[in-house]
């Protein structure tokens, strides 16, 4: 019997459909279906100038919009050959790590409600506001920031930003320890997580899974270390890895990543040099291609822009990490019970905006 979980289902976190074939309560086959939120962003971008595209790329994912506009600016800079001032690079790194914490906290909140831990939802959402406020002070808006520019960032950091960031890091590190007690002390949470949704290392690599679900399979692969961009080579941190490959490992990897993000924010704030935060980028791009590749909170984000000498891109392609990861979902689901679907799919941190584009 096929069951449709979605497109309107509390498990889905956005518009998509998971068809599962069940034998009794056991899943024997699964088919994710996406496309309900397809807005044609790649086509829209072909009709906009390079500057106008920055707010559009923000809309790729409302949970981590800054990483996407940052990735777009990286790609456009690669195409145009623009050198970014060092201060702007440090501001960007601090900002995208704040975005990573905010994104992971939103995932933690949603995951808690999925698994019947409403208290976790309220706490995580409240603490996410701390970082949303910081990003609002930086850019002026709460969720879609429109902050990076081709050649730097829109404006310098506001007064007292260093102090507030360091306070936020100290605060969230204490809170994360409390979360660990709260979540891992809950027997329901642990029973629904440990040993559920196992994914083998070889399968994860072959199916193109990236980001926390891949590092939860014991593969130490983080693009910030392996193919460093921006000023990540100057910063000391360790990618979070867990060998188990189940839902608990994915939870653990994201929690550890938040601690590492705090370390990165501190270093970026301390090492930030004085100077310019933006250079003027050319209006027209040369004929050629540009490519950018970053570690998004959800995996490997990538863009490819073909320029044709005008002020509009000829073709822009976006690689969404979740689009590829969700195609591997049947491998994690088959053999488990229908009740485990919520934990397995929740553990992937779905974001439909970037999946459907």
């Amino acid at each position, binding site marked *: 019997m096929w069951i449709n979980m979605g497109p309107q289902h509390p498990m889905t976190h956005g518009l998509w459909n998971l068809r599962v074939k069940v034998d009794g309560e056991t899943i024997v086959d699964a088919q994710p279906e*996406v*496309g309900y939120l*397809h807005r*044609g962003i*790649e*086509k829209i971008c072909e009709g906009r100038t390079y500057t106008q595209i920055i707010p559009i790329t923000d809309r790729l994912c409302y949970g981590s919009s800054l990483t996407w506009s940052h990735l777009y600016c990286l790609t456009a800079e690669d195409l145009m050959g623009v050198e970014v001032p060092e201060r702007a690079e440090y501001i960007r790194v601090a900002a995208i790590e704040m975005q990573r914490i905010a994104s992971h906290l939103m995932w933690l909140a949603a995951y808690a409600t999925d698994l019947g831990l409403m208290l976790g939802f309220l706490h995580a959402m409240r603490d996410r506001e701390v970082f949303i406020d910081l990003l609002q002070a930086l850019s002026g808006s709460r969720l879609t920031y429109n902050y990076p520019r081709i050649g730097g960032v829109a404006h310098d950091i506001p007064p007292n930003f260093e102090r507030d960031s360091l306070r936020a890091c100290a605060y969230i590190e204490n809170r994360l320890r409390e979360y660990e007690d709260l979540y891992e002390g809950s027997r329901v949470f642990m029973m629904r997580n440990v040993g559920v949704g196992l994914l083998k290392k070889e*399968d994860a*690599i*072959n*199916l*193109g*899974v*990236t980001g926390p679900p891949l590092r939860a399979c*014991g*593969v*130490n*692969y*983080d693009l910030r*270390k*392996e*193919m*460093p961009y921006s000023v990540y*080579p100057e910063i000391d941190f360790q*990618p979070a*890895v867990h060998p188990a490959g189940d839902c608990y490992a994915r939870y653990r990897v994201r929690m550890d990543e938040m601690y590492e993000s705090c370390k990165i924010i501190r270093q970026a704030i301390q090492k930030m040099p004085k100077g310019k935060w933006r250079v003027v980028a050319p209006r027209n791009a040369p004929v050629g291609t540009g*490519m950018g*590749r970053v570690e998004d909170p959800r995996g*490997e984000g*990538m863009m*490819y822009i*073909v320029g044709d000498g005008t002020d509009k891109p*000829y*073709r822009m*392609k976006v*690689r969404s990490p979740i*689009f*590829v990861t969700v*195609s*591997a979902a049947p491998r994690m689901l088959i053999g488990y019970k229908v009740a485990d679907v919520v934990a397995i799919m929740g553990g992937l941190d779905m974001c439909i905006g970037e999946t*459907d*584009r």
Partner: protein
Amino acid sequence: MEERGKRSSAEGMESAVGGADDVSEEKVFRALLDSFPATVTDFKKLRAGVLRARIDRRDLHGACVFLRDSLGFEHISMISAVEYEGRFEVVYHVASWKHRLLLELITTTPKDDPSVDSVSSVWGGANWQEREAYDLMGIRFNNHPKLERILLPKDYLYHPLRKDFKGGD
């Protein structure tokens, strides 16, 4: 960049996919040229760790198997289809985690027969990306297990990323 790369490789990749001897850009180039002398052209180093090569579509599947099995390119990052005057290009970004390389493999297909061989049997991650390229650009992938539209409705008539598609109502 070279120096930074090496330092973190020593500490970072120990627990990763598994040790192998270092494959440099030149080695990849030579191995590809030796195995496919007639069809691999335009080899170029774009920046440290990023390479570009063109390949004829006849040898695409064989070259991908060779890349995965002999050169350690175990991850397909992205498949993009681009329309040019008189031709389509399918661009494969293939990554090797062991050797920290990214290869941009470009293959060309004519407008009247836009088809290339599917590589989803080589890398499972290519499956949905090929369906997306078929859906939006109308490139057919031979031997694909399920070549159907993925983002647009099944009864949709057009391939909207083509340049002759006009939006609006």
